[in-house]
C-alpha cells in the first residue's frame, strides 16, 4: 500500500471523526448541565429520537431547515419540562422516568413516522440536509482542510458550544448555582437559590441539546429519518459524561474518541467487502468506547446529590 493511499484513508477517517462525534457532543454537553444540577436523565436516547423526528417532519413539509431545527428545539424543551415535572416536582424515581422516556421516544417516533410516510412517494422521504460549508482559504490547506474546514453548520456549531458551556459553568452565577444545587442542594437553598428552578432549567437545557443531537442525525448526517436512528448514542452520551468528568472539554474529548472508532469501522466496512459481517464492525465503536470509558472511569467528580430528589 503506498503512502498516498494511507494518507487519504487517514484523512477520510479523521474528517468523519468530528462528524460522528457531533451528536454526542450536543447530547453529552446537555447532560452535563442536567447532572451537574443533581438530576440524571437516562432518557437521552428517547429524546434524541423525538428531536430527530420532529426536525425531520417539519423540514420535509416546509422545506425549511430553520423551521426544522426550531421544532427540534421546541420538542426538546417540552421533553425537558415534562422530565422535570416528573422528577423535580413530583419527585418520581429518575431512572424509571428516564426509562419511560426511552420507551416512549422509540415507540412514538416509530408510530408517527409510519403513519405519516407509509405508502407515499419515496422522493418525499429524502431531505436537503445542511450543506458542507467550505471555509475559504482554510479549506484548501492540504490534509487538514478537509478534516476541519469542510463541515456543515451543525458540526461547526460545536466549536462554539463547548467553550460556551465551559464558560457558563465556571464564570457565571448560573453555573455556580447549578454546581451548588447538584452538590449540596440544602446549602444552595439556605443561600436563597431556587433549587427547583435551577433543576428545571438545567434539565431542559439537557433535553434540548439531546433533541438537537438527534436532529443532527436526521437533518445533517443522514438525509432522512429511520426508526431508531439514534442507535444507542443516547446511552454512549451518558458514558461520555462520566468519562469527561462532568466537564464540557472532557466530554468533547470522549465524544471524539467515539467518533474515531465510528469512522474507522465505516472505513473497514468499505474495505473488507463481505469478508467480515458488517454487524460485527458496527459494534466496534460502542465496544471500544465502553472499554476505554470503563477502564478510565471518572472517579470522585460525580455530583454528590446526583439522582436524589430534594426535599426542603
Amino acid at each position: 500500500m503506498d503512502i498516498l493511499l494511507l494518507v487519504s484513508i487517514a484523512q477520510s477517517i479523521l474528517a468523519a471523526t468530528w462528524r460522528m462525534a457531533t451528536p454526542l457532543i450536543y447530547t453529552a454537553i446537555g447532560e452535563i448541565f442536567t447532572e451537574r444540577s443533581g438530576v440524571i436523565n437516562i432518557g437521552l436516547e428517547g429524546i434524541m429520537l423525538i428531536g430527530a423526528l420532529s426536525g425531520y417532519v417539519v423540514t420535509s413539509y416546509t422545506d425549511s431547515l430553520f423551521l426544522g431545527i426550531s421544532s427540534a428545539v421546541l420538542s426538546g424543551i417540552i421533553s425537558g419540562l415534562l422530565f422535570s415535572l416528573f422528577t423535580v416536582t413530583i419527585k418520581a424515581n429518575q431512572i424509571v422516568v428516564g426509562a419511560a422516556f426511552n420507551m416512549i421516544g422509540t415507540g412514538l417516533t416509530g408510530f408517527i413516522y409510519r403513519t405519516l410516510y407509509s405508502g407515499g412517494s419515496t422522493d418525499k422521504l429524502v431531505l436537503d440536509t445542511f450543506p458542507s460549508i467550505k471555509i475559504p482559504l482554510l479549506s484548501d490547506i492540504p490534509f487538514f482542510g478537509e478534516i476541519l474546514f469542510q463541515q456543515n453548520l451543525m458540526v461547526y456549531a460545536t466549536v462554539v458550544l463547548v467553550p460556551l458551556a465551559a464558560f457558563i459553568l465556571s464564570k457565571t452565577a448560573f453555573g455556580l448555582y447549578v454546581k451548588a444545587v447538584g452538590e449540596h442542594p440544602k446549602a444552595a437553598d439556605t443561600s436563597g437559590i431556587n433549587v427547583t428552578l435551577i433543576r428545571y432549567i438545567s434539565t431542559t437545557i439537557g433535553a434540548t441539546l439531546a433533541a438537537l443531537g438527534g436532529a443532527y442525525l436526521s437533518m445533517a448526517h443522514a438525509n432522512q429519518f429511520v426508526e431508531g436512528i439514534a442507535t444507542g448514542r443516547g446511552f454512549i452520551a451518558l458514558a461520555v459524561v462520566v468519562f469527561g468528568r462532568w466537564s464540557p472539554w472532557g466530554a468533547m474529548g470522549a465524544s471524539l474518541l467515539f467518533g474515531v472508532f465510528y469512522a474507522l469501522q465505516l472505513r473497514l466496512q468499505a474495505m473488507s467487502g463481505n469478508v467480515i459481517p458488517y454487524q460485527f464492525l458496527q459494534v466496534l465503536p460502542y465496544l471500544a468506547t465502553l472499554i476505554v470509558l470503563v477502564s478510565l472511569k471518572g472517579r470522585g467528580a460525580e455530583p454528590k446529590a446526583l439522582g436524589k430528589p430534594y426535599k426542603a
Partner: protein
Amino acid sequence: MEDIVKTFPDTIANDGITIEVRSGEVHCLLGENGAGKTVLMSVLFGLYRPDSGRIIYKGESIQINSPKDAIKNRIGMVHQHFMLVPTLTVTQNVMLGQYAYTKILNNTDKVAERLREMSQQFGLDIDPCALISELSVGEQQRVEILKALYHGADLLILDEPTAVLTPQETTHLLGFLRQLVDNGLTIIFITHKLEEVMQVSDRVTVLRDGKVVATVDTVDTDPRELARFMVGRDVLMELTREATQPGPVVLSVKGLCVNDERGLPAVKGVSFDVREKEIVGIAGVSGNGQTELALALAGLTECTFDELALGGRPVMNVSPRKLFETGLVHIPEDRHKMGVVLPFTIAENIILEDYHCQPNSHHGFLNKRYISQHAVMLVEKFDIRASGINEELEHLSGGNQQKVVMARELDRKPRFLLVNQPTRGIDIGATEYIRQQILLQRDKNCAILLISTDLEEIFMLSDRILVIYEGQIIGEVPADRKLIEQVGLWMAGQRSTV
C-alpha cells in the same frame, strides 16, 4: 418571636413559644434534643413557615418566607450541619445566591479580597481561595460565620456550634463570639451543654417539649437549676464511680492498621490492652480513625495487625457472628445504619443477632411466644418508653432507640464491650441512664472500650484515657480531670506535654 406554633404530621415541635432576644446580647437557647430549639430557629431563618405566631424584629413585625428574606433582614445562621458546598472555594460559597441567574461573575477577586480583609479583622484565619473540602471542621465553621458576617448579619444564630470542636477550638470560638457582641452583634446560641451556657451567655431560655420553661439571666442561675429546667427533674451531674482493681487483660491489640472506605490508611498501627473491670476511653475529634478502629474490632472491616487477641485467644479477621460467640459486644456509633432496623418492631430488633438459635427459633421457625415474653422483660428492665413491644423503632425517640440497642447487647452478658458514641444525639435523661448501664457492666467484670468525641463523657466514665489523632494513639493519661487540658491539646494534634 411571639407565640410561635409549628406542627409536623406527628408532633408539635413548637407549642406557642415566645422568646425575646435583646440587641447586643448572647442569648442561649437550651434544651434537650427534640425540645424544638432548631425548629424555632429554622422558623426565624425562613426554612419553615410557622402555623401561627409572629416575628417582631427591630420593632417591626416581619414576614420571613425563605432564607433569602432572612438574609435581607440581616439574620445569619450557622447550621449544625454546615451549609457549604465542598467542591467550591470559600469565595464561591459566599457568593452563592447573591446574584441574578444570568450574571457573569467578574467580581470574584473583589469578593475574595474583602473576605481576606474581614478574615484578618476578626482573626478568623481563612484563605478565601481554599476549597471547602480541604478545610478542617473548625475552619469550615469559621467560613460559615464569615459568610454570615459578609452578608451583613446583625443577628447571628449558631446551632450547636461546639459539637464538632476540640476543647481549644471551643474556647476560641466562645471568646470570638464575645468579641462579635462587643462589635454590636446579637447572637442566639443553641446548645444542650450547660458549661457553655454558663461561659458565654447573657441570658438563657430553656425549652422543653416545644414550650418555654424559663428565661433567666445567666448570672442568676447555676447548671443544676438549668438541668432541672431542661429535664423536668433533678439530674445527677456526676456519676458516682468507685475505683476498681482491673483484672487480667481481655483485649490485646498490637500494631493494628485499618484502611477507610476509600482505601486510605485511617488507623496507623495502634496498640493497647483492655482489662477486666476497666473502662478505657478513646478520646479524639471525630474523623481521626475512631470509626475504622471500632469496625475493625467488631470484625466488620478488614485490617492488619501484629497481634489481636480476645480473652487470650487470637482472633484473625473472623466473622462478626464468631466474635459475638467469643463474648464481644458492639454498640455501634450510628444506630440507624448499624444498630437497628428502623421499620422493624422492638421485639424484632431484639432478636436481630440471635434469631437463628434456641430459644428464639426452632428448626427455622420463630418462637413468637418466647420472643414476646423476652422483649417485654427487656423493655421493662431497660426502661424503654414505648407503647408496646410491637411498636416500630422509627417511632421511638433517639434515646429509646439506643436503649433498645443496649438491651439487646447487654443481655448477651458481654466479656468485652465495645461502645462507640453511646450518647450522641440523645437527651440528658437517657444519657444518664445509658452511662449508668455502662458503669454497671464494668462492675460485672466486663472489659470496656469506650470511644467518644464527648470529652465530658470520656472523663466521667473511663479509668484510663487514650487519645487518638490521625489514626495514632498519641497519649495516655489516667482519668483525672486536672488533665483535661492535656487531653485537649493531644486531640488537636500537639504531641508535646505541658
